[in-house]
């Protein structure tokens, strides 16, 4: 199926966009602009609003769109949370690889993300806690205590320069001349 819309009456011979391309364009746009109005996005992409709405709900059902998050620089708030990256080495389970270990870890709500990693260790876990102590307790009581986990190396994040493709330490200012030919 093709999606297209004639923008200015009959004048625009828009290149026909297939489903794959439309999906890619929607995703690229909402990845960094979750709050974009669907009507506006339809205008910008030159397609019908209903096409976007349909594709988005389909992608939600398919688990491609997993949620709409807000990127927050907590360091600029009063919140005192600490974030840790933990390198976990563990023994894979017969028939399940690392899936069972990963599941046991990701079920904790304070765990932000769990990745299977190539290289010197197996799982990379990011974890948020109120204090250093809280994280230390989690690592010793919940992680290291697990049978299949061989070792943990914990790193605390000291400063976030860039997160999710967004530079947090600098704001864009337009320094161009106001009028140029």
């Amino acid at each position, binding site marked *: 199926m093709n999606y297209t819309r004639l923008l200015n009456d009959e004048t625009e011979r828009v290149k026909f966009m297939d489903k794959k391309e439309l999906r890619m364009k929607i995703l690229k746009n909402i990845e960094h602009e979750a709050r974009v109005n669907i009507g506006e996005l339809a205008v910008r992409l030159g397609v019908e609003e209903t096409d976007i709405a349909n594709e988005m709900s389909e992608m939600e059902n398919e688990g491609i769109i997993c949620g709409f998050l807000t990127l927050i620089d907590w360091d600029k708030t009063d919140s005192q949370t600490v974030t840790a990256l933990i390198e976990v080495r563990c023994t894979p389970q017969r028939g399940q690889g690392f899936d069972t270990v990963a599941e046991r870890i990701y079920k904790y709500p304070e765990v932000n993300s769990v990745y299977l990693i190539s290289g010197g260790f197996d799982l990379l876990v990011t974890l948020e806690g109120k204090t250093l102590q809280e994280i230390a307790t989690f690592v010793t009581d919940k992680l290291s205590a697990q049978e299949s986990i061989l070792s943990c190396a914990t790193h605390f994040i000291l400063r976030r320069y860039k997160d999710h493709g967004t530079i947090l330490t600098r704001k864009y200012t337009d320094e161009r001349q106001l009028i140029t*030919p």
Partner: protein
Amino acid sequence: MRNPIADRVEELKPSGIRKFFDIVSEMKDAISLGVGEPDFDTPWHIRDEGIYSLEKGRTFYTSNAGLKELRTEISKYIDRRGIAKYDPLKEVLVTVGGSEAIDLALRAMLNQDDEVIIPEPSYVSYVPCTIMAGGKPVVIDLKAKNEFRLTAEELEAAITPKSKVLILPFPNNPTGAIMERSDLEAIAKVIEKHDLFVVSDEIYSELSYKEEHVSIASLPGMRERTILINGFSKAFAMTGWRLGYCCGPEIIITQMTKLHQFCIMCAPTTSQYAAVEALKHGDADVAEMKEAYNQRRRFLMNEFKKMSLPCFEPYGAFYVFPDISEFGMTSDEFATELLKEEKVAVVPGTAFGASGEGFVRISYAYSIENLKIALDRINTFIQKRRNGKTS
């Protein structure tokens, strides 16, 4: 004391943009839609290559025509775009922006009083460069009803026995107009018939939103009579690096290189190294920026439609050129009032030639957020005028 200034310099009209710039810069907190350069920073990998070349101490001159490696990459790029094959050693010249190439091409080709056909509205330097090269500018006023494209009839009507060069400024600044293959084929016949040469300023070639841009140099018989001008400013967001280039037949490029050698020596070395990286690995950046511009373009056109502000749909560059003649003001008055009342800066169409009267140039080299604020204000401005509540 004698007048230190040459007559023909004194007689040159200053750019209409300059005057407007002075008013705008007086104004605090004005939102500008008047900028003719990308809002993106140069992609980091390109900047990094420039920095690296400085760290390596590459602070010397390059050969006059430019780094061989860069000329080779330019030649490959032009070929990759399906335009033509140019010998990097004899048919490519690296210049200080596309602007220098325009100047060189005219100075290399014009004899005293040769006529240069210049379609307007268009970039501000063609007329003065023609005059300084001793030529005579012959202006064609492009028509909104033709979407500001150049037609064969218009061209034919402008030709005299003295005509030598045609400037072809598409995709166009300020109108955003493009020339499609069939448009170019029609004028190519006229060009051949009257033995004209073409200076094709294709600096916005990567920003063409309908089909891929077609260069006149790619048409049969045109390569030999065309100086193709392009550069890094718009496609790679590298305006401040001041780097452009031109490709053409050896007989012309050799003479342009001679002029370039005497007045410039060579284009900035750091920029040239960065440009090699841009051509080798920058295609994805270009595509991404183009997509962003295209989204803004559609957004703007839709907003104009909502405001019932007439505007032909432009398919190139990053400008729209709405028709403001219904308000009974000149372009200059419209832009000035808009700036005073709503603090939005746009450029009067007349800054780009008399035929820009009744239009203003709006640039979309701004974020959507910025465009939204500015358009709200423009809407307020025009609705007030329509309701007859002018102050």
